[in-house]
């Protein structure tokens, strides 16, 4: 459930300028009250978001082999507006033995842009 949101129009990190503007949601998980996460709303910056709106988790492919949790408005259909790839409720990259639960209709956006990645993600086999 959406508890708040913001639309980022200026980034202090490299690699995000091409994504601007993008919408971040502050989500309280249905599975555990008070547990909150922040992620991209993949429906795009003009999505009809409101406090209390239900969302579903998705994964956003931010670089080769790197996916981070994101959200889509439940029942809205996947946001094609942002041009970003959403994989509905699948596994973190590299985590699953049972293979992908579902694949996005379009290919993940793999622009080769250097973008922020978690330090735990492998980099050139290091």
């Amino acid at each position, binding site marked *: 459930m959406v508890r708040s949101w*913001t*639309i980022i129009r200026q980034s202090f990190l*490299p690699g995000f300028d091409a994504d601007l503007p993008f919408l971040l949601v502050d989500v309280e998980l249905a599975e555990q009250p008070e547990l909150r996460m*922040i992620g991209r709303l993949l429906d795009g910056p003009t999505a009809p978001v409101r406090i209390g709106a239900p969302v579903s988790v998705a994964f956003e492919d931010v670089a080769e082999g790197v996916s981070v949790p994101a959200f889509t408005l439940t029942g809205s259909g996947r946001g094609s507006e942002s041009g970003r790839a959403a994989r509905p409720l699948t596994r973190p990259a590299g985590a699953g033995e049972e293979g992908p639960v579902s694949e996005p209709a379009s290919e993940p956006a793999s622009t080769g842009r250097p973008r922020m990645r978690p330090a735990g993600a492998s980099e050139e086999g290091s």
Partner: protein
Amino acid sequence: MSARFAAAGQVAIAGYAHSMIDRHAPRPLGALAVETARAAIADAGACISDIDGVVTAALFPTAGAHAAEDGVAVVTANWMAEQLARAGARPGYVSGFQGIGQMPGAVAIAVNALAAGAADYVLLYRALHNPPGSYHANPMVRAAGAQQWTAPAGFFGPLAMIALPYNEYLQRYRATRQEMAAVLVEARKNGARLPWSYWRERPLPEAEYLASPVLADPVCRHDCDIPVDGVAAFVLTRADRARDLPNKPVYVAGYASGMQPRRRLPLHWPLDDIMGAGAQLARDLWARTGIGPDQVDLPQVYDGFSPFVWFWLEVLGLCPPGEAHRFVADGGIDSDDPAALPALSGGGALGNGRMHGLPQMLECYLQLAGRAGRRQRARATVGVACQSSPHYGGAVMYTAEPT
């Protein structure tokens, strides 16, 4: 801990000095800090050789990758103590506060040292720096530690941090940016009257605020204090000594600090965390000082980001929960109205520049000491100086008479 602060009214501010606040000072920050420290010591009627305590909070609050070089970008208590020692001081008590809510934290260290007899005259100061280039821009391409759960999605830096609870407030209480304009107009009105302020003689018209582009909805540039170079310094001593010094003493009645109630991701500040912890902070402050919100005639709320003004007004019980946006828009904190609560009469950070909790502490001192000049309020007996978010920062209560 016991309810009442045992050292209430035993320590006082004896004098102060303030540097000019500039976008970039013409001299290194350390030089500015030493000059301001000397001026504060003289203002207190003391000599450098009297100073045996040096206390600060040296945090350089940037999300960027700037070097925190001592004497240039920060001025630590050790650095200052060395300079003063060369000029004849014998600082045996040197301490720096490391947390958030820098001025309340540093004041607490100074007050405790004086009350315990660890020092007789403490120089308390804070020096703020604006580095060349973007204040918060960070070239990192890999996020380590807890930031790996936030930065890859693009959640980074203090604008996004404050945007979420600010929007949460707007949505929950049907507040508006038009109402927030009243906060900025009040802060800049008061800042425009201060000769040291970066915004001296430059009030902010409401239309200019509303025309400013939004950077992280609903936050625009004017909602953020502007980074500056600047220093303020105070001399604190025990109340019995302060009464023999030239200026009227202003007494420290007590302090309280906020405690984040739950583990959160970096920079994730849900509104309920802020307000819940803030309510506890206020209860602690009233209990430790024995003074309640109805006796506070000079609240000085923190405003490094404009929504903090609403949050602190509600946390301190100066207006009902969810009502601060209307309270301010209806003139509730107008410093020109003798019946209002002048919560930004010292200009705050929005009206001075990014001086952290210094404007709040200074305004409490100047008004309660009767040294506010043309801005002097007829009634100023109990002040509260706040800093940072209520769930991370702190508040100090000052009184014109010992409690």
